[in-house]
């Protein structure tokens, strides 16, 4: 029967051809004209990219201040910090009893309460600002400060949708962390509660410079990454990074990643209603796939202060794949007792049946130093060949990912 049916269809449709319509050619001509325009656009993008790269390479580091890498001092130094008097502290609700120095890395952990628009710090707050204008915000409050060497001015604006706002009382809980890439020096007097400050003697306090190694040196780094795939596939992965910096800007990075890719859901592939002596059956076949992969990318990376850009390529090795097919039968055969729905697993394939293969890809990433050791990044990977997972095609797909890297110095 099979041969006959094949022969029948081949005979009928093998030489089948469609009639020519001039409007088809007109549509194609429009495509041809567009392609000419696109070539120009591609060159435009290349030129723009060249200009941007040139800009990033040749502008001075100071352009990106206040997150400059250029000063990398170390050592211990005493700095005299004048102590505010208790009267001054009481007179100013803001952070005037804090001494800041420019380009300081620090963090803030504080609990605030505001009443009638006046902010009280009820837990020790520690915050340093950097030279220039500093803006901080959270859903309940906003603060701005201007810093010039050792002089600072800070103001707070309190706003929010908290119910208690109507009674003019807001409890603001902040947990902020801010840091620079290089802790060049810390010369800050922590804020203390009034009670503690009042018990402290007046006079000068001494702080010291805290040396921090530069992230420009070659380093070995370990990180974890969460990959988010396209509409059909999601990836979760663990990344290991080895980075060697040639100089302050350029480096080479090898970042193997072990990824788990899975489908976000199953897919209805075939539905059939069967009439069987008064019974109706609806059959739905569902398929799902999961795969372990090893990504082996090599990047050229470029760093400008807190920003790191990387571009490279590599291979994805499919390590193991699981494919599962299920059939769900929805039947009204038990009509008297109500409809029934019974999932029946019809076949299953296991990890061992994986067709192992290697697929090349190119990848670009951007990372931002949120801390000298922590980087938050965006990653985009373009497959150069089909990376179809069983029946779910993601041909030449682009995978996007968010990465969080922690450096081991």
């Amino acid at each position, binding site marked *: *029967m*099979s041969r*006959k*049916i*094949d022969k*029948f*269809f*081949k*005979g*009928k*449709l*093998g*030489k*089948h*051809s*469609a*009639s*020519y319509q001039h409007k*088809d*050619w007109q*549509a*194609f*001509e429009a*495509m*041809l004209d567009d*392609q000419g325009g696109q070539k120009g656009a591609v060159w435009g993008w290349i030129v723009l990219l060249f200009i941007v790269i040139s800009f990033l390479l040749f502008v001075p580091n100071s352009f990106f201040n206040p997150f400059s890498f250029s000063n990398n001092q170390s050592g211990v130094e005493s700095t005299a910090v004048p102590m505010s008097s208790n009267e001054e502290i009481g007179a100013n609700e803001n952070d005037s009893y804090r001494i800041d120095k420019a380009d300081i890395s620090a963090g803030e952990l504080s609990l605030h309460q505001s009443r009638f628009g006046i902010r009280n710090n009820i837990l020790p707050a520690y915050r340093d600002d950097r030279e220039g204008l500093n803006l901080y915000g959270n859903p309940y409050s906003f603060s701005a400060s201007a810093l010039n060497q050792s002089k600072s001015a800070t103001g707070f604006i309190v706003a929010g949708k908290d119910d208690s706002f109507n009674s003019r009382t807001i409890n603001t809980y902040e947990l902020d962390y801010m840091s620079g890439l290089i802790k060049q020096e810390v010369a800050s007097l922590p804020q203390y509660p009034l009670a503690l400050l009042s018990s402290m003697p007046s006079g000068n306090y001494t702080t010291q410079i805290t040396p921090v190694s530069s992230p420009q040196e070659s380093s070995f780094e370990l990180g974890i990454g969460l990959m988010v795939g396209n*509409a*059909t596939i999601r990836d979760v992965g663990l990344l290991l990074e080895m980075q060697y910096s040639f100089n302050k800007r350029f480096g080479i990075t090898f970042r193997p990643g072990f990824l788990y890719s899975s489908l976000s859901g199953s*897919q*209805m*592939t*075939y*539905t*059939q*209603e*069967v*009439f*069987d002596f008064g019974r*109706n059956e609806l059959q739905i076949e569902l398929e799902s796939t999961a795969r372990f992969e090893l990504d082996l990318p090599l990047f050229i990376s470029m760093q400008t202060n807190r920003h790191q850009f990387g571009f490279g390529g590599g291979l994805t090795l499919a390590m193991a794949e699981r494919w599962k097919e299920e059939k769900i039968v929805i039947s009204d055969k038990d009509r008297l007792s109500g409809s029934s729905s019974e999932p029946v697993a019809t076949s299953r*394939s296991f990890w061992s*049946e994986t*067709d192992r293969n290697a697929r090349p890809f190119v990848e670009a990433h951007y990372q931002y130093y949120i801390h000298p050791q922590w980087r938050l990044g965006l990653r985009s990977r373009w497959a150069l060949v*089909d990376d*179809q997972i*069983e*029946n*779910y*095609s*993601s*041909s030449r797909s682009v995978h996007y990912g968010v990465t969080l890297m922690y450096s081991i110095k």
Partner: protein
Amino acid sequence: MDVTDDLIAACRSEDREAIHKLYKYCHGHLIGIGMRYLKNRNDAVSAYHKSFMKMLNGLDSYSEQQNFIAWAKRIMVNTCIDVFRKDSKHTEREYPFDPSDYFYKNASVDWNLAEMNMRTDDILEMVQSLPEKSKLVFNLFVFEDLKHQEIADLLDMSEGTSKWHLSKARKLLQQKILLTLEQENTKINVS
């Protein structure tokens, strides 16, 4: 019209008239193929345009010793497979069969009757209405004469899955033919 070396050379030098000639030459063959693989004529024309663009961009790699139409056909089939891959993640098809399908389960087709009574457009529609994957496997197996292993490699599936899809396509097509012949027969009896 034959595809001459001069025509190819003129197309390489982006002569619009030559491109039009080549477009017309391939049009019927390749859209015919596309209509078997895809859902309708519009999709087939769109796939043909993509293929023809690839052909124009790849004319430098085309050697005059090759059979041009075979080369073009291969590009068209690959484009159809690409279209299938792009669409497959959204695919959700339903095949509303008449409940009386059940009674045709064990019946056999009179191929001579089918040969005489069935129109090409109806047959094409039957192939077009197959589940996407089964349609692809059926086309590659029957019309491109590929073996299951080759189909499996091409579609990144197992050989067994390819066989299963072919079998499913044949069963569905047979059911449709039986149903059509039955309806024709009823019409004749009524009249």
